[in-house]
């Protein structure tokens, strides 16, 4: 099935990580990046196409959530946390 090809899963992974980096809240940003990485890593050996498709669909819905919440966070953004100016916002 084309929808669940390796290339498309990787595209989804990159898109999710890219979008998550726009969270203006430090805690949401770091959680999203960490969770996405760990979730894709945990499921990397799933072989069954139906299962893969279900995971991909969930990831697409989560990408939509991230996208909307990033926008809301930016509209209502506030000052940075005390540790954000000391360390580079790496993840």
């Amino acid at each position: 099935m084309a929808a669940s090809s390796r290339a498309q899963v990787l595209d989804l992974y990159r898109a999710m990580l890219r979008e998550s980096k726009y969270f203006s809240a430090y805690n949401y940003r770091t959680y999203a990046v960490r969770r996405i990485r760990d979730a894709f890593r945990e499921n990397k050996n799933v072989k069954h196409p139906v299962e893969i498709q279900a995971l991909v669909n969930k990831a697409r819905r989560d990408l939509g959530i991230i996208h909307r919440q990033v926008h809301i966070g930016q509209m209502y953004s506030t000052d940075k946390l005390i540790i954000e100016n000391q360390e580079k916002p790496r993840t």
Partner: protein
Amino acid sequence: MLLRTAWRRVAAAVPVAPGPKSDAPTRGLRLRVVDHSPQSAVPSDTATAPQAESMLRPLYMDVQATTPLDPRVLDAMLPYLVNYYGNPHSRTHAYGWESEAAMEHARQQVASLIGADPREIIFTSGATESNNIAIKGVARFYRSRKKHLITTQTEHKCVLDSCRSLEAEGFQVTYLPVKKSGIIDLKELEAAIQPDTSLVSVMTVNNEIGVKQPIAEIGRICSSRKVYFHTDAAQAVGKIPLDVNDMKIDLMSISGHKIYGPKGVGAIYIRRRPRVRVEALQSGGGQERGMRSGTVPTPLVVGLGAACEVAQQEMEYDHKWISKLAERLTQKIMKSLPDVVMNGDPEHHYPGCINLSFAYVEGESLLMALKDVALSSGSACTSASLEPSYVLRAIGTDEDLAHSSIRFGIGRFTTEEEVDYTVEKCIHHVKRLREMSPLWEMVQDGIDLKSIKWTQH
């Protein structure tokens, strides 16, 4: 001077229309941060640009008080705050039907987290209301035959206060003591149960010291003696696996804002098989099976449901992460500082709530020194008074150690950097405060503080 700068910035920011690239909004909070000026009397703080520093927010390490909303929860709630605003009890139009469908879906989500049937979940305004319903409702319903209740000394204030108000109505309440570990003695519980006991109430995870009570054993004891068992699971739901049937729980209180859900909503689980009868506290139109009248706040319960579903999916992952960070925090602090005591049983313990007592350091002064980290020294509901926490007193902590306790909360969104920063500042300030302490000097010289005879003036 900093205040003037802040006012200037506020005045400049006001005419600017908010947009995705706007400055931080001019809500009161920012000014409060200015008070936490780095230009305190402590010169030993690491040099930071004073103007920039005053506009930065502290780290949040107080998850037992409340938790931030998970973005997934907010995303689920927003449609019901914007477009689907119907009253779920309106039976005659689509607005009501869609709102009711959302409410029932949320009920299913909450029930599935604790292994209950959706018909056993009643939505309330929070765990305090749920505790009130459970304790007063059960006690009053069975008042003709049963006049005795059992609870513990480390319960949340709302449970203790409900029991106190029942005592004024003529009920008898036994407040079980706890061992030094914070856990109740099961034999004492068995001995305390009388033929006219209607309810036993023991919280699952304590909000101040994080100890886990042996809920399954207590449930077994209560069910064998035909006594109802209520547990305040506000701090435990969604964090440790709970099953009301395996643990023989008859009533359970759930709080929304402790599991990354919205504030102002909670739920109570009331068992139907065998039926637990509860006298309703709030009279009205008979909503929620007559147990809690009043319009159910659809956006809030949708948020609670979403929070429960997310918690169910993320429980194992969160537990691993929080345990790792908790281990990191305690190890680093214990390794660098002597005379630090962890309050509560180390084994039957929820890792995300760490209560440490730093000997020879006053808790309030340490909290004020750690101004860049949001911490607490005891539960939020008792923090206004200067008395040491009753929970610490119940576990037998010495008066002076009770005054020097700090509660560190680690949650889903806490990062390693935040823990490292907190640990570093904590070690730095404890060392600094101890340097200033004459008691510490005496201890270093080998004097036993308990042997000192303090003179009267």
